[in-house]
């Protein structure tokens, strides 16, 4: 009997469960009412649920009764939960999903900034692009000159940005200023950067409107970030037509620490004996140097990094003196010693705080022998920096910090001088030492009013004992995301800079120079294309000016305005990646010895570059070319009554490179070939005039072309595991 009762009870129970099945249906949409197919909707802790159909609808039967939690989730959206009561009565539920945090969906500040990074998913360039750009010869600045805003100033390695001089661009490594980023050279021959592009994981090239974190740069900031720990232990050997190099990087087993070094020696004697150079070299350029690096993870989020390099270089040559009628040649000999060190520490403090501390010391000594003068020029820089950031909410962040720089500049000259105004020579001997204590503090907040709208407000206070003045530079920018991939940005900022080093050594030191930037930018970036258009106006005030009595003031002024255009396409042509830059620049300034506001010699009205890269997979060959054009630049012919009214011929150059890649056992080999100015276009950077104004001499490159052949071997990097996995 009892058995029957039990059975009955059990069947009743099962009947009840049949009775309690509840149908749940509805539609899943996002906040813009767009339906979401493939979303997952289910009763928590049960099997019951469904995926939404292509029209976003779903329907399923839940077996539970009573209060349950309904979960709705989809990739890229925030999961939502809702408590509902199930009692067999059909339930209609239309969940609305909110997009989850995704760096790609959040607006970034883009006015004035071109970034190369592997870590951020959408950037204009990748670090590898810097190495593989033809015409750049593996030099960071060589590659950056293909970007809009930069001028083609062939006689200098410096970056001349938007009507600014080379000195208005500052190079920064891990937050620390690099005083002499290029090999010392004579004024008319371009040199190279002192560091290898391979040691950086991120590059931010700012052509204006940059963050309050940076100061003492009126035109541009090139901020480089060194690599963290390497992927593995490796050794490298480099052999080329100009020199040799070796390096080793060791990664300890637990991947918590690494240390490395490299040594290189470059001697252009063999190359110059093959390829004739215009100057008569008394000593072919020789460079020897090396670098050291050390990285240690102090915690999952903390890392200490050291990076340092030293360089010794020598060269000397004679060129035809323009003032001599009997073939006298001017001598220029230079010996340089340079050391740069940089120590940084980064750590997260709790959930919200991030600490960055850094210290750096560098010294540069140039010994120059001219026909009549000998110069000994030294500059030392010690600096410390601290930046603290704190996240506010999900997106907003506030940053503040300070820096201190102690600099020494010594200039010792014995020889003959020339006065521009009286046009006469005089003998002199002088020894000038200048010290400066520079301190700055800044505060800046990135305030996200929504995912699509960010406001950056900040300011920077700077004091230099040499300038003996405290200045405050406000900075601000606004970026608005127009759609999936388009951003509109505007920026405004004031930028102060000490006068160039030469003027700091003069008896009357002119005050700060100042620039004010106004920038508007529209940018569209997807996985394969980048389109950028930027317009700007830059006001120059307090530029250094030679007064009639040959004292110096900062009463100069000027402006620069123009348009920068950039287009990159990795998709349209198969296996081809190309980019086009165009720069329109209208700039005038009253500065130095200029009698009136004119376009300076380092500014071309039109500049355009085409960079083209193609990879031939079957041939293991990577090739590329870069074509650069710049309209003629101004120069002053003293015979012309109008100052700075002449223009050089247009500048054209085609650079070519190719690299053959091959894996031989555990050795990865790259055989590289590069040549600049393939076509052999004539290039004139300006003219020099004799004192009597009777003769002129064109300033040209030391040789029409530069050829480079190099073999790079890398051991231990088992790049066989370098998978290009495209399983579709």
């Amino acid at each position, binding site marked *: 009997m009892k058995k029957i009762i039990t059975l009955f009870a059990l069947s009743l129970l099962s009947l009840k469960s049949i009775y309690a099945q509840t149908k749940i249906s509805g539609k899943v949409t996002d906040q813009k009412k767009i339906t979401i197919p493939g979303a997952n909707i289910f009763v928590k802790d049960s*099997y019951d649920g469904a995926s939404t159909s*292509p029209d976003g609808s779903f329907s399923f039967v839940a077996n539970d009764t009573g209060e349950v939690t309904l979960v709705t989730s989809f990739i890229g959206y925030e999961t939502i939960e809702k408590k509902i009561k199930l009692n067999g009565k059909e339930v209609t539920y239309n969940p609305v999903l909110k997009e989850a945090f995704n760096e790609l969906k959040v607006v970034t500040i883009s006015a004035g900034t071109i970034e190369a990074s*592997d870590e951020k998913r959408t950037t204009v360039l990748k670090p590898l692009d810097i190495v593989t750009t033809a015409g750049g010869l593996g030099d960071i600045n060589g590659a950056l000159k293909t970007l809009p805003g930069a001028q083609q100033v062939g006689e200098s390695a410096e970056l001349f940005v938007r009507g600014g001089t080379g000195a208005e661009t500052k190079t920064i490594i891990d937050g620390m200023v690099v005083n002499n980023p290029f090999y010392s050279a004579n004024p008319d021959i371009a040199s190279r950067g002192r560091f290898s592009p391979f040691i950086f994981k991120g590059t931010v090239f700012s052509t204006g409107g940059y963050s309050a974190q940076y100061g003492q740069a009126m035109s541009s900031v090139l901020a480089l970030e060194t690599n963290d720990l390497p992927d593995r232990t490796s050794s490298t050997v480099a052999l080329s037509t100009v020199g040799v190099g070796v390096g080793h990087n060791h990664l300890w087993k637990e991947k918590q620490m690494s240390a490395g070094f490299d040594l290189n020696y470059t001697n252009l004697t063999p190359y110059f004996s093959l390829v004739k150079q215009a100057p008569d070299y008394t000593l072919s350029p020789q460079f020897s140097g090396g670098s050291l690096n050390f990285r240690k993870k102090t915690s999952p989020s903390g890392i200490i990094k050291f990076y340092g390099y030293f360089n010794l270089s020598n060269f000397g040559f004679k060129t035809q003196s323009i003032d001599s009628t009997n073939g006298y040649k001017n001598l220029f000999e230079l010996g340089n010693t340079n050391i740069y060190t940089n120590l940084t520490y980064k750590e997260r403090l709790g959930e919200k705080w991030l600490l960055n501390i850094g210290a750096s010391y560098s010294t540069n000594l140039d010994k120059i022998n001219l026909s009549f003068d000998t110069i000994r020029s030294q500059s030392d820089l010690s600096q410390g920096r601290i930046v603290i950031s704190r996240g506010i909410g999900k997106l907003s962040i506030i940053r503040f910090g300070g820096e201190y720089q102690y600099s020494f500049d010594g200039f010792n000259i014995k020889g003959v001088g020339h006065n521009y105004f009286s046009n006469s020579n005089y003998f002199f001997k002088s020894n000038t030492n200048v010290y400066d204590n520079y301190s700055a503090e800044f505060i800046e907040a990135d305030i996200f009013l929504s995912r699509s709208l960010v406001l950056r407000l900040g300011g920077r206070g700077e004091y230099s004992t040499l300038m003996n003045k405290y200045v405050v530079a406000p900075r601000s920018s606004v970026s608005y995301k127009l759609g999936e991939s388009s951003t509109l940005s505007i920026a405004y900022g004031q930028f102060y800079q000490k006068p160039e080093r030469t003027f700091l050594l003069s008896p009357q030191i002119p005050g700060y120079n100042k620039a004010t930037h106004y920038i508007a930018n529209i940018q569209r970036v997807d996985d394969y294309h980048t389109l950028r258009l930027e317009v700007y106006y830059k006001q120059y005030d307090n530029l250094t000016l030679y007064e009639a009595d040959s004292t110096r003031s900062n009463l100069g002024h000027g402006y620069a305005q123009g348009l920068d255009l950039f287009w990159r396409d990795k998709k349209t042509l198969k296996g081809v990646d190309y980019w086009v830059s165009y720069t329109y620049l209208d700039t005038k300034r009253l500065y130095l010895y200029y009698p009136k506001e004119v376009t300076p010699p380092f500014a071309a009205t039109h500049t355009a570059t085409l960079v083209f890269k193609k990879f031939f997979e079957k041939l293991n060959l990577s090739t590329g070319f870069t074509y650069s054009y710049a309209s003629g630049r101004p120069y002053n012919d003293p015979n012309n009554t109008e100052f700075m009214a002449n223009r050089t011929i247009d500048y054209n150059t085609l650079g070519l490179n190719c690299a053959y890649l091959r894996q031989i056992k555990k050795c990865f080999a790259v055989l590289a070939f590069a040549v600049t100015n393939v076509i052999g276009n004539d290039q004139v950077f300006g003219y020099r005039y004799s004192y009597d104004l009777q003769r002129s001499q064109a300033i040209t490159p030391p040789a029409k072309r530069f050829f480079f052949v190099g073999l790079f071997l890398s051991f231990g990097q088992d790049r066989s595991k370098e998978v*290009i*996995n*495209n399983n579709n």
Partner: protein
Amino acid sequence: MKKIITLIALTSLFNIADAQNKKYIETMEKNIAILDTTRDANVLQNQANTFERIGNAEKKEWLPLYYAAYCYVNMTYSTKGNTIDTYCDKAETFIKKADSISPNNSEIFTIKAQIASARISVNPMTRGQKYGTEAGEIREQAKKLDPTNPRPYYLEGTAFFYTPPMFGGGKDKAKPSFEKAKSLYEAFKPASSIAPHWGAKSNEYFLQKCDEK
């Protein structure tokens, strides 16, 4: 009488537990069968959802999470660019959970290696070195944890297969891995009807491709 009641009560309890387990196995079997026949991203998305639901209900089981991750990593092959990372991130959250339920599991390490490899295709030129090395290291761990598991060898084969010869890849380099995988597949007996068993067919396909001129 009481005995009988207790017995009935006990058996019904067992029945419930057994039914629950049966329901788990059957649901898994049905859904894994779908995976064996498709690579369609929409189907994979639905399957990923289903495995996520099963995983939510069966908190002690690693396999539903494993299969959810498997679905997401396979979805990367039919998309491009940054979406690959999004899928990989999702796959990674599932495989991490699976790993915490069943640590040192060769099959879980296999999926981890597959995720690292998938990330390379976002940008092979810049990511090859980092994720290629990572994938290789995880594959080695997977081999060590279970030397009879053919899947790490199969993945190694595909990695070599899609790596250009100049970076030390190519068909010739890939073939020994596929051959090793083949011999392991032939000897391999899945631990249960729902244990991982994928890859044998694709391995055959790649072996043939290796012999093509």
